[in-house]
């Protein structure tokens, strides 16, 4: 929750509206709907406060590879499990460039949406994997891919 002046004014207005709407109807259901609507407005305000940071994947770097990114990543999460680094999002949209420092394999999986392009070529089937030699580069473009995941690590394949 942010406490800038404008936000404080917004919260105060919401509180006044809640008071007026609670007293303005004899219908309990309408009063509860008011609470619901104001709660949704508050939710919208709060989630938009952090939206700019949450929805952007800015890249990642380790000894074996680095990823530079200008991709939007909705519902984003990243991490490393059993030596495999991953970024996954409910929606992935934008460009990521994977550059290998050592030999690495990577895999891209997605469930639907606008698709995924590797070095400008559209990929089909919902999954593909490749291996990069040292200094090799993969140019990945996600076009609103849904439930998409990029994994980088040893021994990755779609099988």
């Amino acid at each position, binding site marked *: 929750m942010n406490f800038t002046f404008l936000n404080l004014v917004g919260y105060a207005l919401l509180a006044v*509206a809640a008071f*007026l*709407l609670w*007293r*303005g*109807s*004899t*219908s*309990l*259901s*309408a009063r509860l*709907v*008011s609470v*619901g*609507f*104001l*709660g*949704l*407005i*508050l*939710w*919208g305000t709060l*989630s*938009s406060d952090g939206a700019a940071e949450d929805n952007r994947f800015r890249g990642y770097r380790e000894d074996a590879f680095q990823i530079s990114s200008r991709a939007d990543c*909705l*519902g984003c999460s990243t991490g490393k499990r059993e030596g495999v680094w991953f970024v996954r999002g*409910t*929606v992935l949209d934008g460009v990521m460039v994977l550059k290998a420092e050592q030999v690495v394999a990577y895999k891209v999986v997605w*469930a*639907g949406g*606008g*698709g995924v392009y590797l070095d400008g070529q*559209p*990929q*089909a*089937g*919902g999954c593909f994997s490749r291996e990069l030699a040292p200094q090799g580069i993969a140019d990945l473009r996600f076009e609103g891919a*849904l*439930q998409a995941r990029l994994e980088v690590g040893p021994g990755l394949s779609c099988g």
Partner: protein
Amino acid sequence: MNALPTLLWLELRKSQSFVMVLAGILLLTAVGLARLTANALNTPEEEAVVLFSLAAVIGGTLLVVALFISARQDGAGLLLSVPGGLAHQVARFVYWGLLGAAFALTLALLLWAYLDRTVPGMPGLGSVLTFVFYGLGLVWLPGVAYLLLAFSYVQSYQLSRLGWLAGLAAFLGFFGLVDVLVEVGSKVAYAALPPVTISLQSLGSRLDDIRLPLEPLLLSLALAAGLVVLAGRVWDEVEA
């Protein structure tokens, strides 16, 4: 007593002129599609899609306006009728849901019939209808339910002259609800159920199949049902 036929008839009578206008839009679209010709700037297929989009936007807006005007016509007159609020709201939901569906399906059918003749490998009608039904369930039905709730909700503040504030809350709350739906829907998408797949392979290998997740659709339908029930409760408690 089953009041549903009467209430559906009432909705039809109230919105008859709008139904005629919607039919006119469909007719104009059909005529427009039949007269499309190639020109220097666009292909006929591109123009067909533009025409379709225009008709969809105008028709959709008109449907929302018609629903609003139709609900306003009732005033307080129906509040004391014997069928309860739920019966009234269900009738409105069914009528406007079906009217929107009929409009969207006819429009989609017109576009498909045109593109099927001109685009090689156009997916079958079944795929197109699946896509339209998916959109109706995901967007139109919860939208209608939301409008019905918002209308009764605003009505319940008319007496205290706070209808404007209630209307504002309902309007702004809509965006919050969409946020929540996108957030929750994207979290549960593809999680448990197999997606509905619409194959685009016939169009060539450039396009991937469309896989529509079922979970957000079910979420939207459950939300629509909840909103209609809530709208019925508010109706029963409105002062006028």
